[in-house]
């Protein structure tokens, strides 16, 4: 074995896996477990990425892998603790996970079972093995991504949603993942799978929060299948602590005429890497990706997106916006593939950043790889300071400078936030943005 600095966390994880395997008895022969073992071997081979890896050039996981975490630590969380988080009150399905463990006593499911089949991953393993065998780990590639491999190897809890064909689920669903880091460093690896069958429609949000100020590590993977004519809205909302590490991959697979709308909003978090990968494996699909990141202090927020146009006549549209304060860093890497078959593709990408401090850094990298000849693609990134002309204009009307600045920044952010169609969620985010701007 090479003596890399990441051996600590890595070797602990490898040992954990082998220990848990010994306790599994017969279950270790299941198809699911074969995938886990394959993923673990892959993780072993890959190791944690270093900045030499092109995809991790600006996001150095060194300090993450030096930490010691308790995985799936027990937590005695109470309703009062939750109240502290001031979450939006949602009229819908709400599922709580604390340190990776499902909290049935805090959760509620309001949608009728014939509209929406929703269960934890551990329940789904028992109750719907066929569904899992068909979809689980079939989309989120663990051959090249060590964190996805790690998540797959340890996949034990998360949410499995299945929306049957021709069903519109009215109530939104929100999955609340909380790291309870009040007592110790904690880690969890949620694993989600959403299947939206033909001509079905659903809205799902994932929210990530932290309690306490010890370190936390969330390594989440979500796989999403949007079948023919289906429509999905997907929101990922992050309000984590400065001591929180978050690595996440959302892998979307779209079939003919499906529509996928997403917004990834990161207001706080110490060290964040989001991968959003969309495979448009159908024609006449639409994929819309919006993102907002607002780091301050020494926060680091990295968004990597990948849109893979595999079939003709589909449309992808992407707008990511960043506001960077203090000594924070941001990364946007947006890749668009247009394969040879994907004629008449329409792909649009834009990334706009406002850097409010001389010590903040934004790295942007659009990447277009186009192998078809009849396509419309455009991309653009801008990174600049606050518009001084606009600021003066508002001041000249009597609005104090700090408020004028907030007004401008809020309008800048609202461009993305207004895309969130779950009202209480959007309104809560608006309040949080206002509060962060007023700080």
């Amino acid at each position: 074995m090479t003596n890399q600095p990441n051996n600590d966390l890595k070797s602990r994880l490898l040992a954990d896996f082998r220990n848990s395997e010994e306790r599994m008895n017969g279950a270790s022969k299941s198809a699911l477990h074969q995938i886990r073992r394959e993923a673990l071997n892959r993780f072993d081979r890959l190791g944690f990425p270093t900045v030499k890896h092109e995809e991790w050039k600006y996001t150095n996981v060194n300090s993450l892998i030096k930490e010691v975490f308790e995985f799936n630590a027990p937590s005695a969380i109470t309703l009062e603790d939750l109240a502290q988080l001031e979450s939006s009150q949602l009229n819908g399905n709400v599922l709580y996970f604390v340190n990776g463990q499902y909290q049935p006593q805090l959760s509620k499911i309001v949608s009728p079972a014939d509209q929406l089949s929703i269960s934890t991953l551990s329940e789904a393993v028992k109750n719907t093995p066929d569904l899992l065998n068909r979809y689980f780990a079939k989309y989120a590639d663990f051959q090249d991504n060590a964190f996805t491999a790690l998540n797959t190897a340890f996949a034990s809890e998360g949410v499995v949603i299945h929306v049957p064909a021709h069903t519109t689920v009215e109530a939104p669903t929100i999955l609340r993942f909380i790291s309870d880091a009040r007592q110790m460093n904690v880690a969890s690896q949620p694993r989600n799978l959403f299947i939206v069958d033909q001509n079905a429609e659903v809205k799902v949000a994932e929210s990530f929060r932290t309690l306490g100020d010890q370190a936390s590590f969330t390594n989440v993977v979500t796989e999403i299948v949007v079948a023919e004519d289906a429509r999905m809205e997907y929101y990922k909302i992050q309000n984590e602590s400065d001591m929180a590490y978050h690595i996440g991959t959302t892998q979307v697979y779209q079939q003919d005429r499906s529509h996928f709308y997403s917004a990834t909003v990161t207001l706080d978090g110490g060290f964040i890497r989001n991968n959003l990968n969309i495979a448009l494996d159908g024609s006449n699909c639409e994929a819309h990706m919006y993102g907002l990141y607002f780091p301050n202090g020494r926060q680091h927020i990295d968004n990597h997106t990948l849109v893979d146009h595999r079939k003709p006549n589909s449309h992808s549209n992407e707008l990511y916006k960043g506001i960077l304060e203090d000594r924070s860093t941001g990364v946007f890497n947006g890749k668009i593939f247009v394969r040879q078959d994907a004629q008449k593709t329409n792909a649009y990408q834009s990334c706009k950043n406002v850097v409010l401090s001389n010590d903040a850094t934004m790295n942007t990298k659009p990447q277009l790889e186009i192998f078809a000849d009849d396509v419309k693609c455009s991309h653009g990134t801008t990174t600049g300071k606050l518009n001084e002309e606009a600021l003066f204009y508002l001041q000249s009307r009597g609005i104090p400078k700090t408020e004028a600045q907030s007004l401008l920044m809020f309008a800048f952010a609202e461009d993305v936030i207004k895309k969130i169609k779950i009202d209480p969620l959007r309104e809560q985010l608006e309040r949080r943005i206002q509060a962060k701007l007023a700080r």
Partner: protein
Amino acid sequence: MLTISNLQASIGSKEILKGINLEVKPGEVHAIMGPNGSGKSTLASVLAGREDYDVTGGSVLFEGKDLLEMAPENRAAEGIFLAFQYPVEIPGVSTTNFLKTAMNEIRKYRGLDPLDAVQFLKLMKEKMKLVNIDQSLLSRSLNEGFSGGEKKRNEIFQMAMLEPKLAILDETDSGLDIDALRIVAEGVNQLRSPERATIVVTHYQRLLDYIVPDYVHVLYKGRIVKSGPKELAFELEEKGYDWIKAEVETV
């Protein structure tokens, strides 16, 4: 009301205003004319508090207070309004949206209670009629995709809402057709009162048919080189600026 004494301003190493003297009393309308690049917009911007310019000398008193010491928002709260020559586009911020904030900030500065939504709306309706502007325009992103005329009308609408003591109009007439010009002028004239004053920066005499000035000043190369009654504007219209330039050069 406004006393400008020997005002000098530069941008970088470039001297633009080279000693401006101007006295504006309540109730008066002053027109400032002059060729392009003379420093008219610079003067307007310095009065409103734009930070790009360095004031290198002189003073400006507004109702006895040192204007140059004040932040732009406080100048607005004291009653100064600048209608921009080139109004800024601000995506995502509508006129209605920011104007309510602006009005209430100004009211706060003056120790008044904020207007509630109903009062604000009522006032807006009234002023919209005055400048013949549409609600839909006011709900859109400020100046984004507005025509030249719409931008200028929006400036006058804001002026009507804020009811400044001293309004400075920087070429509000340029690019307007005669109907729009009339509306703009009406907006200004409605505001005329013995307590208020207006500085009209313009290129053309035609606006002054509608907003009749008490004084006309010619700004050239950063100085006021000639002042006179409203008839001076006719003379300038007829003869252009060359004779003034010639006069200045011979001195």
